[in-house]
């Protein structure tokens, strides 16, 4: 099991999709940065009095990245089950592994790699911001509200760590959701956009039905939800992804293998 886990992890890590997702995430951070600082008369020296690197990171994270992050989370490895199925590789794997072990490894690798994409890209962007703007505990920035905002007021470095962890969890959830839907959709492109579709539906239809707490964008922006509700929603969505994948692989594609 461990050798297959390692080979899958290696396969996912050095894949073209992972590299594209990494570059795309960094690019979206910088588009957010450009939008934030693209006003007349911007200069770093003056800006540093108001915002430090963590403040800027908080702002640009909520820009275009907050819209497209479910797509990026899913494009890394969520279609890998369908790829195994299409290429016939799955028949070969089942000779060596049980289906349950295969599913477990698939879920783990998909979650880890997708989560690491946002963590690595966020750290790269933060290091660049830190070198330019540094950290100023007394910055004038006061836009942090919602879940964990009290932690920001006490120690913004810990708040930054929480942002990184919640970003990791967010990618894990949406990558798993897409993986879980893949046996039913049987189309690699639909698989990549599946969890994004849920993201958009939750932010439009659920909100118009006044189901505000089910707005999945709040899992990334960390507005409005209490920490308890945030954790419950994260666990529920992750479980939905796992259960869908379990039943999808066990029963949906039985005749194909």
């Amino acid at each position, binding site marked *: 099991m461990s050798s297959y886990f390692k080979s899958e992890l290696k396969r996912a890590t050095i894949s073209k999709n992972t590299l594209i997702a990494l570059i795309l995430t960094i690019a979206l951070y910088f588009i957010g940065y450009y939008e934030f600082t693209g006003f007349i008369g911007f200069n770093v020296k003056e800006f540093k009095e108001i915002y430090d690197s963590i403040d800027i990171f908080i702002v640009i994270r909520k820009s275009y990245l907050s819209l497209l992050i479910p797509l990026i989370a899913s494009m890394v490895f969520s279609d890998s089950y369908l790829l195994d199925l299409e290429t016939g590789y799955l028949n070969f794997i089942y000779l060596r592994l049980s289906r349950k072990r295969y599913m477990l490894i698939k879920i783990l690798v998909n979650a880890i790699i997708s989560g690491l994409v946002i963590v690595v890209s966020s750290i790269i962007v933060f290091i660049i911001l830190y070198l330019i703007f540094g950290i100023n505990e007394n910055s004038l920035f006061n836009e942090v509200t*919602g879940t964990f905002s009290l932690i920001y007021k006490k120690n913004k470095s810990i708040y930054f760590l929480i942002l990184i962890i919640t970003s990791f969890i967010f990618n894990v959830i949406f990558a798993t959701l897409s993986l879980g839907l893949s046996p039913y959709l049987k189309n690699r492109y639909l698989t990549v956009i599946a969890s994004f579709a849920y993201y958009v539906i939750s932010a439009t239809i659920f909100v118009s039905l006044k189901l505000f707490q089910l707005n999945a964008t709040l899992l990334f922006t960390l507005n409005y939800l209490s920490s308890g509700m945030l954790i419950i929603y994260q666990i529920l969505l992750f479980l939905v992804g796992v259960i869908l994948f379990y039943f999808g692989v066990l029963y949906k594609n039985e005749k194909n293998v």
Partner: protein
Amino acid sequence: MKKISKMVSILAFGVILASNAAYAASTDYNFQLPSTGSKYTNDVYKQTVSKVTTNDATYIGWEGSEIDCWTCSTDNKVLSAKSTYSDTGTVSMYMAQSLANDYIGNPVNMKIKTSTSTMHACNVRGSFDPS
């Protein structure tokens, strides 16, 4: 002669009234923001060298919504960093000090829109003060 002085005093009064309106310290807004696209407040004259313009948000519609706002010139140039808020209260928008100095006595307005992750229309109310 009497007629002329009467006309002059009426004209002067009118000018004073008009300038008072133009130099009002702040302007109220009440918008239904669309899911995409933005709205902008009335023009207000900037009166001081302060580089902080403020948005006193008194109402945000649907819960969990996030709103972006920033200061603009009348010819639509972006004058401040974008600020984002999801609760009522005073939101500060920061300009460069040199720009704040340049814009004293000039009209500015505030652009306002739903943030990228807010995918629905949203009612907002408040007032914009360019300082």
